[in-house]
């Protein structure tokens, strides 16, 4: 840091006669501006989050009633109704997504941390996984549309679940790898010295040592996919009635329901959209906070 000496000539040169401060006024002003600007920036961030939560609570509570959890979504122009089918559909889709993504993500993370380590292939996969992590989710929707909706001939819950799984996988891969890398290699060596083959060492020692971190990754992935809308638009679509158990045809789900109902002209639809938005945001914020605490308790141990 010797290259950039920040102080060129801040000395007593202009010992301000009036002000008691010896700091040149230009420097003081620049400093004040920085302090004010960054405080304001932080305040803006907090105010925006506060305003979003306030809006959700005010509008969402208005539409909250026990009927939400028992009635399916109403048709256009009809009165009342609930969002029970959308809630159930969302649970099903998220469940399918996480059930597919967890084994793939954990195993791939294990490969990167244990088997691949420094190999060229592992480096490449790590890099592409990071990119997949922030890839536009609508493109994943297009991919699954071509892959499943086209070939199966109809929108389906399976396609929606797969799309969510593709979004969840990189999150799980990333956290699993990071957490496995934190496990001290002496533990692995101890296992290997007892004669355990690599797979046993990984399953019984490293996975167990990193279990809280891996669970956190899964919770974070859950929080990420629970509110995803774009990839469901062309895969699970939406539907205003209960869905068939084979999950073919449009599957009602909260995010797409919110999207369609919020932009609709019917007041009861908009009300339901707000209620759904409140529900989904509370769920996701709760999941993210839980994930945080799992990590914290793990570090404390």
């Amino acid at each position: 840091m010797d290259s950039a000496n920040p102080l060129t000539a801040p000395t007593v040169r202009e010992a301000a006669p009036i002000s008691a401060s010896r700091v040149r006024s230009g420097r003081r002003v620049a400093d004040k501006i920085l302090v004010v600007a960054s405080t304001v920036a932080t305040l803006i961030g907090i105010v925006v989050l506060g305003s979003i939560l306030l809006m959700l609570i005010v509008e969402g509570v208005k539409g909250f009633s026990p009927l939400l959890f028992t009635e399916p979504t109403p048709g256009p122009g009809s009165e009342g109704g609930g969002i029970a089918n959308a809630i159930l559909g969302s649970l099903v889709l998220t469940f399918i997504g996480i059930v597919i993504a967890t084994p793939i993500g954990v195993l791939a993370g294990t490969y990167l941390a244990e088997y691949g380590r420094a190999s060229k292939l592992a480096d490449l996969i790590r890099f592409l996984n990071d990119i997949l992590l922030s890839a536009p989710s609508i493109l994943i929707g297009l991919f699954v549309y071509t892959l499943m909706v086209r070939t199966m001939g109809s929108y389906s819950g399976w396609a929606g679940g797969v799309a969510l799984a593709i979004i969840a996988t990189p999150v799980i891969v990333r956290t699993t790898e990071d957490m496995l890398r934190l496990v001290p290699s002496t533990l692995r060596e101890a296992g290997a010295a007892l004669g355990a083959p690599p797979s046993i060492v990984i399953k019984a020692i490293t996975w167990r040592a990193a279990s809280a971190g891996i669970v956190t990754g899964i919770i974070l992935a859950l929080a990420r996919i629970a509110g995803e809308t774009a990839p469901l638009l062309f895969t699970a679509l939406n539907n205003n009635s209960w869905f068939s158990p084979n999950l073919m045809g449009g599957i009602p789900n909260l995010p797409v329901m919110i999207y369609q109902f919020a932009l609709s002209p019917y007041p009861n639809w908009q009300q339901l959209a707000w209620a759904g938005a409140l529900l989904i945001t509370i769920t996701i914020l709760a999941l993210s906070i839980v994930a945080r605490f799992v990590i914290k308790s793990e570090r404390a141990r």
Partner: protein
Amino acid sequence: MAALTEQIALARSADAPARKTPGGIGDSLFRLASYGSALLVLLFLVGILGSIAYGGWPAFREFGPGFITSSAWNIGQEQYGAFVAIIGTIASAFLALLIGVPLSLGIAVYLTQLCPGWARKPVSMTIELLASVPSIIYGMWGLFIFAPLFASYVQIPVSSLVEGMPIVGTLFYARVPSGVGILTAGIILAIMIVPFVASITRDMLDQIPTVLRESAYGIGCTTWEVVRHVLVPQASVSIIGAIMLGLGRALGETMAVTFVIGNANRLSASVFDPGSTIASRIANEFNEADGMQLHALMALGCILFVVTFIVLIIARLLVRRVKVA
């Protein structure tokens, strides 16, 4: 060899679960499974590119390079061009960076330098929670809360102020001050990228050795000088990486933008006018599209894929290089 060890293992498992020899079927199966899963991640990416390129190919073949420069989007006459959507995407992402980057840097500086100890945790948690709010909620907030306020307190006064002025008059004039438009989309996107850019920047600033900061304060630097001459030069490359990561998000964001951009296929010089982005157009039209329109939308997706992936690759390279160093 494997069969032999298996036999021994089987023979022994009857009386005692004796020690297992390294190797064996289970072991190589497990290795294979994790190898396969890792390859699957690779396959996802190839699959995304492949399917979109395959779907968009007919449109590229039909319209040639003119697809990118044409601003037509006429479903009746089967004439499609990507120009308006590309400009909308770039303009909204650029505005998002213009607004979001100073905000994020301010937040990062506040959290690392100015914030009192007790407030650090809750404030940074609040900012990070912003990242987990689903994009559709931002869209609703933008449309129902922000847009009306923006229309009455910014668009209308600014429009009447600049009306008739040479350049500013076209750039900031709203023909229909409804609150939605490119600038509104840019602002919402800015809010959405702030948590990402701010938290990466904060992590990078935290990694800078405290000694550097303390010695700068020790020779009498003000906070501004410490930030400007010590922290920023140290973390500049990774801050740029974080900004690129934010740009990648802003380019591909769909739902929030679809709510607030107005969805018009019109080329306009004013940032207050509605437009559309690649992602919002796909979200709006894909379900009702077939034939050439479907191919054209896929081709739009292909352009988005290429652009975001270049941006994300640069971002990751920049962020990574610093971590290694």
